[in-house]
């Protein structure tokens, strides 16, 4: 286990030794800030106008949900940037030789890389909590909804990271890793909308919708926690970590 943390700790330090770590924080929080400002502005406007038109004022929960949905979009851009270098850079600089000739298993390497990327993004997520906490400080939204939403986002993030690591392990070109991861995650995001055009109402549509991440995330954003949806993300992450492990281990006998 110590080998896993040795590898993870080195990766975390390396990320923050370069401008990369700061850039991730900057873009993530910057975009979140812009969205937050925009949504809040809209929210206040609608709340003011609601009595005039006789409609219902929007709720704080709706504001939060809008915010979290956008987090999903930002992650599609940020995750590939974090995972692209994990293996491809090491393979390109040949530093992977150091890991390959050390008494550590492929599984330990994969877990180390996964924990490193997950820890970096968990830090970003933790800092991004400033926006929901702001709402909490000045209003009274459902606190548990914030918690389940964050849990959902965290699980989604782990699943996406596993996918990104798998792509990264297969190429020595960081740009290719970035591109394929981004399109893969984007496809996963829009699969929900694409599904009906493939096979409307059929079994296949149901399957595609199940694979898509959006529906599962909705449940968390509604403040619910179900075994079904937690299992979806955990299985997703485990599957792609397993794939990464296979890719890495296969280099040993190929």
């Amino acid at each position, binding site marked *: 286990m*110590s*080998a896993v943390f*040795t*590898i993870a700790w*080195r990766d975390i*330090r*390396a990320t923050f*030794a*370069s401008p990369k770590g700061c850039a991730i924080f900057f873009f993530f929080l910057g975009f979140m800030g812009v969205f937050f400002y925009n949504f809040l502005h809209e929210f206040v406007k609608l709340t003011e106008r609601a009595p005039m038109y006789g409609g219902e004022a929007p709720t704080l929960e709706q504001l939060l949900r809008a915010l979290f949905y956008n987090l999903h979009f930002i992650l599609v851009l940020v995750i590939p940037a974090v995972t692209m270098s994990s293996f491809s850079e090491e393979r390109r*600089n*040949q*530093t*992977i*030789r*150091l*890991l*390959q*000739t*050390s*008494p*550590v*298993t492929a599984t330990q390497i994969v877990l180390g890389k996964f924990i490193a990327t997950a820890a970096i993004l968990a830090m970003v997520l933790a800092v991004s909590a400033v926006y929901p906490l702001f709402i909490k400080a000045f209003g009274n939204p459902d606190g548990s909804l914030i918690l389940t939403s964050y849990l959902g986002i965290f699980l989604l993030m782990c699943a996406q990271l596993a996918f990104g690591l798998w792509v990264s392990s297969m190429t020595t070109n960081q740009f290719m890793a970035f591109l394929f991861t981004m399109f893969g995650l984007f496809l996963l995001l829009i699969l929900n909308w694409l599904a009906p055009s493939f096979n409307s109402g059929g079994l296949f549509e149901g399957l595609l919708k199940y694979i898509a991440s959006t529906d599962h995330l909705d449940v968390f954003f509604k403040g619910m926690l179900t075994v079904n949806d937690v299992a979806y993300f955990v299985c997703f992450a485990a599957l792609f970590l397993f794939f990464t492990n296979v890719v890495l281990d296969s*280099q*040993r*006998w*190929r």
Partner: protein
Amino acid sequence: MIEVSGLTKRFGSVQALRDVSFKVERGQIVGFLGANGAGKTTTMDIMCGCIGADSGSSKIAGFDIMEQPLEAKRRLGYLPDVAPLHMEMRVADYVTFAARLHKVPTLQLRKQVDEAVERLSLGDVRHRLVGNLSKGYRQRVALAQAIVHNPEVLILDEPTEGLDPNQILHIRELIKSLAGQHTIILSSHILSEVQNTCDRIVIIHNGAVVQQGSVEELASQAASGRIYRIRVARNVDQLVPLLNTINQIIAPRVIDKINCEVEFGLSKGADEQIVDEVAKLVVNGGYGLRELALKTHSLEDVFFQLTH
């Protein structure tokens, strides 16, 4: 200590290795000699478990690298041809990282890192970033990474590549000082380096081992087909038929008419006293002996013969 048997490896249409086998005893330094692209790095990569072989096996300290990789790798220090350096790390941090990966107990971590840094005289740069160091320093950092956990077996792929003469000398001394407690394989395409540091030599050409033995064995093999050069004052044309009459002399020929130089070889197992006879012949025949010399023979001849 190291046992490589029957390694073959094919990259697409290129046959990189054909049935490579050799053994290294405990405490020996073995030179792995070959031209560029002969298969040195491929063999070493397979020995360290970085890539797999199509067939054959490699054992480190009795542990098969494919079957028991963790046990084998625990006893192994590897310096690849491209140094596996993390440019954004500090020297001491990097060496510590390598030590941790190789399961050096936490209590001894500091001591062993200090020792490795000391041995490669990296004390002045231990807090500098690896990326800011010169090539020679980087190579030494990479070497520190390989020896920090005191491995029983050291595999060094062209350890002195890109160093200046002083540093080469330093690294050679270091490698020699490591012998005995460590078993070392080092690859090189520079003969003199191998000749100076190694006990045994394995010569590889086009992916196959063409010769192996101790430095003396190989050198004496080169000597067995010795060639002499003789320079006389006059009548060089008549000297050749005369030399032909001596039994154990083969293929005498004029190589330089103007300077009156003749070259001749001694057949295998020939007595060196033949040379006395030749000298007598020349002096008595009134040719005027000016020079009689053994054409330099060394490992280079063996290497040249085997790889051409």
